């Protein structure tokens, strides 16, 4: 294919992540692990799950961006990555929207959940 099969085709121009960045990410990941373990022993009610998942997502982003070099990648592989998570989102959202709406009673459950927050709205009018 190449019109110029000279030395240029055999030269790679990749961004080399410095070791210091890897070590910094490593320390952050270890800190995140300690933090998520520590938080789990404190009663935050429903927020325990939320905090655990936020920390997990933060750790994932660190691994993806730096260890997996996505921060330095070109567009195409980024599209694939975002696509993968987008499909995962579709799977989880549609599965849950089915499952969580199967046991509706006279007042749909989700409506009951938001009722306390909207029941005073008529006072505005």
């Amino acid at each position, binding site marked *: 294919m190449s019109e110029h099969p000279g030395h240029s085709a055999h030269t790679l121009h990749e961004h080399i*992540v410095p070791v210091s960045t890897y070590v910094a990410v490593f320390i952050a990941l270890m800190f995140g692990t300690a933090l998520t373990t520590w938080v789990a022993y404190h009663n935050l009610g429903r927020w325990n799950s939320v905090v655990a998942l936020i920390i997990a997502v933060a750790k994932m982003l660190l*691994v993806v961006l730096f260890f997996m070099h996505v921060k330095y990648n070109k567009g195409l592989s980024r599209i694939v990555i975002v696509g993968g998570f987008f499909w995962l989102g579709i799977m989880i959202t549609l599965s849950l929207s089915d499952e969580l709406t199967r046991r509706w009673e006279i007042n749909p459950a989700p409506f009951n959940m938001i009722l306390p927050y909207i029941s005073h709205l008529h006072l505005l009018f």
Partner: protein
Amino acid sequence: MSDLAVHEHEANPTGFAHQFEDLEQQHDAGRLGMWIFLATEILFFGGMFTSYTIYRSLHPAAFDIGSHLLEVKFGATNTAVLICSSLTMALSIHSAQTGKRKGTIIGWLIFTMLLGATFLFLKFRFEWYHDWLEHIMPGFGFVYRPEWGANGPQVQMFMCFYFFLTGLHALHMIVGLGILTVLVIMAARGRFTTQYYVPLEISGLYWHFVDIVWIFLFPLLYLIGGRYSTGGH
């Protein structure tokens, strides 16, 4: 065949394959292919994460009890072990990128393999084996405990999720160890240079992905379940 092999060897001192415009395109293509595979892996594990989410929402109490059957110290240690292995994997690629001698690349790869083996040893020897001894391994003499009350079947389901999720993850680790073995052989043969390290890079992507799966499994299985409470005991 041998003529062709010799010719290829002479023409491709850097592992450059002729169908590509240049090394950079070859590198990008390899990386893209691995990411497409990993996208299918996201959905592969995602299916289990989705069913886990649904059943946790249906049986929160039973899942809390189940979570308390697991030992946080092993889960946390293994998380740390995997993060270390991700660092050593990244450093092996870094050694190739910066033209370190092949012994350095092999050293980091073997260090990564040892950490991976440590993870599996802890998982099987100190977790699965004890679960089996304590009769909380579904299919292998699972016994309901009286303190679980009516939650028994759902606790067993949690343990099913635990064994399938960690089992599939462990399977990926074992495959990863196989891939790393191949990389060690390739490195020993001097296949990697500053210009050609695609196999290292995309195997690294796989290894880091398996790490990410564990980063989610650890809180989902071991932590979310009210470690602050007694969990129904």
